[in-house]
């Protein structure tokens, strides 16, 4: 038996690389590196972990350089020596950092990555119908439906955007969940959904721009404030008030921690004024924040960025709980809603007194213009 069955030695480089490209799981590549020193050197010299990450996340094409930070957060000293050893050290560093990135982006329990709301393109009644409301499932605040509402428009083609800041400036995102708002206190229970939705991810042009602003004021020009480095395909939206899931074709790295939801096309008019509105009651962005162990530093104006691995950094602790909060409206809420509606019917039919409302306070939600309907 010849000793020459080591395909890395026998086959030419292109062929060996082609074969190793079949390995999509980072674990396979990590084990290949531990077969022998020469196999490890092959993986490092050819930047195979970087190639794997680039195939998974084309967003990484804009990495300017890679850094490893030690205990004190200081950069590891650059080796003084031959250029060969410096280059090798750089390749070895890439190997370590991209292996970590590949690992954490392929093995995790998705969690909600929204840290806070930044801005909505328009808001009908601020703060009652603020974008802030989309961060909480409706049931947390009893007796009051929580939702964001856009301003009304005559033209249904006018879009809206919602912008959120994520928990980390470096996240991997797999899907976005949105629940359109159903105004069950309006006749016909209209659902103020949109025709379709699209997502963008990016970073602020200047980190200070976000500053302190009322959420009610839309950003002067979102496109000038942010640079979008990823745009998803357009997904049709259902005219239903359930939590709709929009799964990205591939997981995406959000570099910069900003996510924008574009709501395209209005479908529902409000009876009172005949204008088209869009209202959303709940938004979740599912994925995994990658800091503090992995971070990015964006280098403007080139738009490239530095990928940093913090040797001592841990990953954001995974909640470990199955996500069960963001379900469709639970049963008892339906019961309440039905009782509320029944009560109104009774009022209209003259069968009941206004003061007997059990679940909702009479004055409270009728002060929003949108919700009034003639009694």
């Amino acid at each position, binding site marked *: *038996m*010849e*000793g*020459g*069955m*080591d*395909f890395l030695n*026998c*086959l*030419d480089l292109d*062929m060996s690389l*082609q*074969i*190793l490209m*079949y*390995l999509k*799981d*980072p*674990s*396979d590549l*990590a*084990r*290949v*590196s*531990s*077969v*022998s*020193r*020469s*196999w*490890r050197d092959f993986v490092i010299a050819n930047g195979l972990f970087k190639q794997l990450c680039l195939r998974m996340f084309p967003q990484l094409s804009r990495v300017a350089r890679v850094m490893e930070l030690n205990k004190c957060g200081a950069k590891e000293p650059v080796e003084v020596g031959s250029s060969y050893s410096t280059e090798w050290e750089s390749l070895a560093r890439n190997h370590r950092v991209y*292996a970590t990135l590949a*690992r954490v982006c392929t*093995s995790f329990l998705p969690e909600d990555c929204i840290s806070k709301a930044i801005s909505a393109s328009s808001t009908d009644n601020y703060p009652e119908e603020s974008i802030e409301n989309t961060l909480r499932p409706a049931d947390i605040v009893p007796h009051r439906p929580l939702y964001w509402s856009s301003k009304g428009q005559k033209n249904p083609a006018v879009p809206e955007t919602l912008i959120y800041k994520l928990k980390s400036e470096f996240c991997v995102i797999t899907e976005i969940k949105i629940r359109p708002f159903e105004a069950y206190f309006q006749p016909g229970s209209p659902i103020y959904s949109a025709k379709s939705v699209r997502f963008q991810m990016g970073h602020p042009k200047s980190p200070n721009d976000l500053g302190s602003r009322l959420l009610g004021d839309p950003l002067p020009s979102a496109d000038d404030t942010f640079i979008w480095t990823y745009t998803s395909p357009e997904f049709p939206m259902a005219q239903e008030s359930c939590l709709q899931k929009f799964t990205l074709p591939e997981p995406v790295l959000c570099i910069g921690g900003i996510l924008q939801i574009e709501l395209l096309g209005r479908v529902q008019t409000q009876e009172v004024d005949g204008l088209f509105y869009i209202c959303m009651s709940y938004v979740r962005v599912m994925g995994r924040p990658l800091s503090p162990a992995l971070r990015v530093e964006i280098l403007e104006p080139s738009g490239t960025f530095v990928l940093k691995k913090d040797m001592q950094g841990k990953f954001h602790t995974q909640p470990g709980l199955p996500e069960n909060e963001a379900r469709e409206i639970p049963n008892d809420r339906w019961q309440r809603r039905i009782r509320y509606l029944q009560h109104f019917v009774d009022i209209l039919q003259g069968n009941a007194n206004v003061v007997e409302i059990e679940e909702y306070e009479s004055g409270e939600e009728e002060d929003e213009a949108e919700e009034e309907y003639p009694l």
Partner: protein
Amino acid sequence: MSNTSENPKPSSSSAKMTLKTSDNELFEVEEAVAMKFCTVKQYFEDEKDSDVAARGSTTVIPLPNVHSAVLATLISYGKKLPQSNAVADNHEEEETKKKERKKYEQGLLKNLMPGELLDLISAANYLDFKEGLEFFNQALADHIQNKSVEYVRKFFGIKNDYEPHEEEKYREEYAWAFEGVDED
């Protein structure tokens, strides 16, 4: 070497070509199959241009880099592939053929020694036989995917030249990669 297809073929595809291996064996192959080897196709087309010879002439195409055993396997695999010029099968026939092919593929790979696999890959590469290359490359990758390091070393005959402490350090750093693999 008769083709198993029952359907009548269009006239041009019954032509045969002769391929000569490195150990001077001659293989008569149907044009439809031989054309999957793009290197052969290129050679044939060059010949045709220069010769204005009729199709199916008795040109012998030399393949100095391919041994007969390897070529036999590649031809056999090539025949099992859906033929581009065959009359379209109905769905049932297609399913049957697929199953047959799967069975054939499994049989082929079962007793394949690593050295033979490498020879097949080299030859498929030389012949520019895309489907064959993909198939055998994947077969090789399957001996790495989800397999333990010990298995890989054994299969490919790789000597472990790590120092024990070096290897241990690596395994610790990449502990996540070593969970749940086939020991086989």
